[in-house]
């Protein structure tokens, strides 16, 4: 039987940090390394970000009394930028040491923080419940083994990992509006866009790369980028948005 394992992610994605342009995980090959950076935007009319009514869990209503949480399936920023897009090297990666730092997922105010996290196979992932009530985390994995676990208030963190590459939607069985993604990527070259839609993939040794941008509702787009030395190449992604 397979063991759960692996995974990844972006680290300091705690709320405040999300305003940063992007998360960067540099690899460190010898010689001149290049960088690919760009911005993810949309054209058209995106779905409305709707306030989430958490009436079922009065404590979470109180936590967000000042400003209700909005749906996160499509999060836009000024200038038609898209947040929570994962941009990564999907082909041409020349390998890197396995990631060992622990990635953290918080359940706070009936919300997954971060909404999208990236981990590499077998990278430690700790899941915390910071709310004074239960959660039941349920990653809807298909390639990796699917599981769901209840985590009462005050319970210790769940230590886990994902073993195989997969994009895993995650839901809470108790709070239907809670949704997130665990992106298990084999590459260490990835970024998750912040509100400004910007990303930077650095530390890329010379070579031909395919860079892919994934957005949970709009799907993926890819571009080929060739790095010849210590240069910075630009790759912008534009998704076509529809309101429904």
């Amino acid at each position: 039987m397979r063991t759960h394992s692996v995974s990844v992610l972006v680290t300091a994605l705690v709320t405040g940090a999300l305003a940063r342009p992007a998360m960067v995980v540099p690899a460190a090959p010898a010689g001149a390394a290049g960088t690919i950076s760009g911005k993810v935007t949309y054209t058209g009319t995106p779905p409305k970000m709707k306030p989430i009514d958490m009436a079922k869990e009065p404590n979470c209503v109180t936590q967000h009394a000042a400003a209700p949480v909005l749906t996160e399936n499509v999060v836009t920023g000024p200038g038609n930028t898209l947040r929570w897009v994962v941009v990564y090297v999907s082909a041409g990666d020349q390998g890197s040491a396995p990631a060992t730092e622990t990635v953290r997922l918080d359940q706070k105010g009936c919300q997954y923080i971060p909404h999208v996290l990236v981990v590499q196979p077998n990278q430690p992932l700790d899941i915390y419940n910071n709310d004074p009530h239960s959660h039941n985390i349920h990653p809807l994995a298909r390639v990796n083994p699917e599981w769901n676990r209840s985590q009462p208030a005050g319970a210790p963190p769940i230590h886990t990992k994902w073993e195989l590459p997969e994009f895993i939607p995650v839901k809470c069985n108790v709070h239907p509006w809670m949704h997130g993604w665990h992106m298990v990527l084999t590459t260490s070259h990835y970024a998750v866009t912040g509100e400004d839609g910007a990303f930077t993939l650095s530390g890329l040794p010379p070579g031909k790369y395919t860079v892919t941008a994934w957005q949970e509702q709009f799907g993926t787009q890819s571009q080929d980028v060739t790095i010849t030395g210590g240069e910075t190449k630009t790759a912008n992604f534009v998704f076509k948005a529809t309101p429904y």
Partner: protein
Amino acid sequence: MGKLFAVVLTIITVVSTAIFVLRVWWLPADISAHGPQIDHQLMETMVSSGVLFVLSQLALALFVWKYADRRDGRKVREFPGGATPMVAAAVVLVGAEILALTLVGSKVWAGIYQTPPDPNSLQIDVQAEQFAFYFRYPGPDGRFGAIHPELMNEATENFFGLDPARDTTARDDIVVPTLAIPVGRPILLTLRAKDVNHAFYVPELRIQQDFVPGLVIPLHFTATQPGKYEIVCTQLCGLGHYNMRAYVEVMPQPQFDQWLKDKAAQQ
């Protein structure tokens, strides 16, 4: 020993009867138009079964007190014809009581559940799923969008599986996790289950109705008192059943109109 048992029996009878007579644990106040019928029926059941309970327990205590310590094994008296007629008599007596309650109760139940809803009812669609309730109002066009189960997506808050891209009647549907209703207006709920059996129970409304996957079950009532009351699931529906609840907010019509307007703006 026999006398002690008789005393204990009597104490149990008196205390348990007192709990009901003094209404220590009683139903919450009724807030529905049909509630008085239910309460009346409950009271009839309670009184008739209560009287029988008290009489039989006290009779038992009396006999135990009087005869338990006899050592000579003599029978006090024999039921005419022996055990068989005694059991038959008990079955007929108890059965008659249950039958009578059932007949009267069915009439009350059918009068509430099997009557057509008021044609001016406000229709609200209810969906139960593990482990939450969602409510849908038709929006300004007065029509519900069609439901497409394959489009149900919690991540986009599309709990009912609407298709606003193609179905214009679905675009203004108002989907919320709280049931708001105007006081004094007939309400027609249509209950749907997304996954397994659930139940819609509001003690104050004197309503308890199961959701069954594949069925659309109508349920109508009129609330008579403003306030906020809990809706709970009373069918064990999975691990999170304990936490499956929502609220019903009964409000005056103008306040309800405003509430609906506010929610419509958020869709």
